[in-house]
């Protein structure tokens, strides 16, 4: 058992008069009984010899939305990619420290990477629909994970498109190219594609920043609806958005050359009574 897990449990004893370990959710809908799903300890990340992230430790709670805020270039995206080991794809990138998912060491050499990424999905800043039809975009990963029955595929496609609120918009053109959709629709296709694999965790890297305000609002509402059913870690530059949807927030800042985690806590606390002066300055819009 790692120390962070014990720590959060000891907090649970202190506040045993309510059902939440860290007190009731302060932002968003009360969604869950926070238990640690991902625990990150002393995570450091280097590109070549250059550190990008140093000594980050935090817990991601099951069913909650955790927002990561901070200026550009402070390693939030790198942090996110370390959580599903997408950092393996980046040449020269080394990760040290521990990440435990449901108690399993993510850097265990015996871990099945494909299964891990199926459980921990990722949405990118720029929507990346594949140059295939809308239907194929969702079916392809499913087939690769062993679902081959056409009726099953069709029902999953319909279900996830309903989940992301896209079914009515695209049900008559499932076989046309996903590239013809608008940016907001493309991003929702990408979310649907990830949801189809029934992940436990969704990592979202500024999913709204490439979208217009209306599409952005639609995607934000969608993320809010996913709260509770999925554990979501979202990187965002939109502080208002973080405030609206997140249960927990982590503030990253660049110290010397490497990014680090300055403060982590309940969303309301980070925004309303930050303990660190950098956090206070950032959320009040003075710096960054």
């Amino acid at each position, binding site marked *: 058992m790692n120390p962070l897990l014990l720590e959060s449990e000891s907090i649970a004893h202190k506040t045993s008069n309510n059902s939440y370990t860290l007190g009731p959710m302060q932002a968003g809908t009360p969604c869950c009984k926070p238990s640690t799903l991902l625990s990150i300890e002393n995570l450091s990340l280097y590109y070549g010899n250059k550190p990008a992230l140093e000594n980050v430790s935090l817990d991601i709670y099951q069913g909650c939305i955790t927002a990561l805020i901070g200026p550009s270039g402070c390693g939030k995206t790198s942090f996110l990619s370390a959580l*599903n080991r*997408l950092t393996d*794809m980046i*040449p020269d990138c080394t990760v040290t420290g521990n990440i435990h998912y449901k108690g399993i060491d993510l850097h265990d050499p015996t871990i099945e*990477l*494909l*299964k*891990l*990424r*199926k459980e921990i*999905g*990722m949405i*990118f800043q*720029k929507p*990346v629909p*594949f*140059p*295939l*039809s809308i239907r*194929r975009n969702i079916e*392809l*990963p499913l087939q*690769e*994970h062993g679902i081959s029955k056409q009726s099953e595929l069709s029902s999953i496609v319909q279900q996830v498109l309903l989940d992301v609120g896209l079914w009515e918009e695209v049900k008559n053109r499932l*076989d*046309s*190219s996903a590239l013809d959709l608008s940016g907001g629709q493309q991003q929702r296709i*990408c979310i649907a*594609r*990830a949801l189809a*694999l029934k992940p436990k965790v969704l990592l979202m890297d500024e999913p709204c920043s490439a979208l217009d305000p209306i599409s952005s609002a639609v995607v934000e509402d969608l993320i809010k609806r996913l709260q509770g059913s999925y554990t979501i870690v979202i990187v965002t530059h939109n502080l208002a958005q973080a405030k609206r949807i997140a249960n927990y927030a982590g503030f990253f800042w660049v110290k010397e050359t490497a990014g680090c985690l300055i403060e982590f806590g309940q969303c309301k606390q980070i925004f309303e009574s930050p303990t660190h002066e950098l956090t206070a300055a950032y959320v009040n819009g003075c710096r960054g």
Partner: protein
Amino acid sequence: MSKINFATLLIWLVAIVITTVFVFILAEIIVYGLSGLSWSFLVEPPQNAGRSGGIGPIIISTGLILFVAIATAAPLGLATAVLLTEFTPQDSRFGFFVERSIDILAGIPSIVFGLFGNAFFCLYLGLGFSILSGGLTLACMVLPILIRTATEGFRAVPNDYRLAASALGLTRSAALIHLLLPTATPALVAGLLLGIGRAGAETAALIFTSGYVDRMPDSLFDSGRALSIHIYDLSMNVAGGDANANSTALVLIIILFLINSTSISLANQWMHKRVISS
């Protein structure tokens, strides 16, 4: 005259000069070659060293040589490109050396390939003067073109696709087959066409490998004369062969044009079908 107008003029001038050269060559071949073109010219064997008769066996030999060349070079080229772009780290020494070797190979004059083919395929491997020797020599020659264009094609595929595919738990081979290959198809087809064009027009590399024999080949181990060699022979060695040389050149141009247009439309259709149904 303003700068922009001057630039526009220059661009037009260059375009016109290039087109004019092409039109002149084409016009001459058509003017002198069209009259000799007939069905019997296409199917009959040559007579009197090619002065009369047709080019039937020569078309067949050319087709067989091209087939051997492309059937060998295309899979090898594709595999090498995939290895270089998808399975070799960008800064590896191995990749660097392979790519430099390919660049050097691309710059070697075709006559050298001809001599190599003669020494290696005809003599060392004992294939003799044969369509197989000629095709394999051409394969060596077009391989650098195929690898280069395919490599560029794969590199042009946005890295986002690879990351997104990995994030969805797709294996690298699945991403390759379902995403990278279809996206790179236009580049692959373009490379294939360049290769076919180069192989189809090649003379020097074939003189020493597939030979001069102008009768119908019995098998791939038989010697066979390619269209380009026929043109060369008629215009250089056979007095009074110019008319048939022009007709043969016209046939060669038409064949290359047909190969180009059909493969482009096939590729388009295939891409379209992938998006729609597969």
